């Protein structure tokens, strides 16, 4: 077992739990929690893919001189993606929660079955 593998497997597990929750739960809040789990799982997968053996954070300081960094740091691109994705995930969660609140005020129920317009 290496680190990439552990992080990837945990990320996949988390995403699967999220998927399972999204498919089986009828309660809007539980679906939103499942979506957050799925989100976190995807973040873990992305970070795991960017890992380099023995790598450190790609930030130059006394311990990491410019010019000798290749082979010592992890991939900065997935880190940058996840950094923004976490905050965007927060805003999207807020949007979903507002939708849940609206559904509750208009239908007095948090079940997704109450939203009949979503069915086709």
């Amino acid at each position: 077992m290496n680190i990439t593998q552990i992080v990837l497997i945990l990320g996949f597990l988390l995403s699967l739990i999220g998927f399972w929750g999204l498919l089986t739960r009828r309660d809007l809040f539980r679906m939103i929690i499942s979506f957050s789990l799925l989100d976190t799982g995807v973040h873990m997968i992305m970070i795991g893919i960017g890992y380099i053996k023995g790598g450190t954070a790609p930030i130059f300081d006394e311990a990491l001189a410019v010019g000798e960094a290749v082979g010592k740091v992890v991939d900065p691109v997935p880190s940058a993606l996840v950094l923004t994705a976490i905050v965007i995930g927060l805003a999207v969660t807020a949007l979903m929660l507002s939708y849940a609140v609206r559904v509750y005020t208009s239908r007095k129920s948090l079940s997704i079955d109450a939203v009949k317009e979503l069915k086709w």
Partner: protein
Amino acid sequence: MIKRFIIVLALAAIAVGLYPLAWGIQDAEILTEVANEYVENGADDLGAANLVTSVVVSYRGLDTLGEITVLFAATAGVTMLFAARKPKKSGQKGSLADDSRRTGSELLQTGADFLFPILWMFGMYIFVHGHLTPGGGFQGGVVLASAVLLLLFADSDRKMGHTLLQIAEALSGAAYVAVGLLGLWFAAGFLDPRFLAAGEFGQLFSAGAIPVIYALIGIKVGAELTGIVDTMRRSAL
């Protein structure tokens, strides 16, 4: 029953599909070509000690502009959902807020008043030092918004300047694009931070326009998230 069976089948199919991805993989020894380029030349190129910041603000700056747009869309969505139709005043106010609200305890109120400036300063520190240390505009913005959230926990009736919030949001967004265009005009391309002097590597005033751009992103994110918090608060009043 058949539904549950299909769900289990779908999950199993996804798991089987993912299994070889996770099983065969080893810790990578070398970076991909693009990342290698960034790590090798990023510091000399842009002068930012934090390579992740170089990627977020400059190399993939256009993506970040997209992310900010998504954030803006989410905020607009929250506002729209709550502003669509006000529930009837008094009497039956919707069961969300029929209990009279308690204000925060003495401890919470004093603590919030005491911590607010410190949190605010910490958030600004995070986004101003984004090119040197871990952190940056997104994290700093979230800290700013969480400070406001703490204030609202202590006293949910506290008045907030909506105009100020909107001005901060609009100006920082516009300034972000304007700085990007300055890069297009004076340097190599859109959101190129090198039109300002590079400064001394590792100092606060370095890395060209990266601190400026990240500070603008921080203000933007902080204003958006504060807007979300405030919209949710007002809708429940």
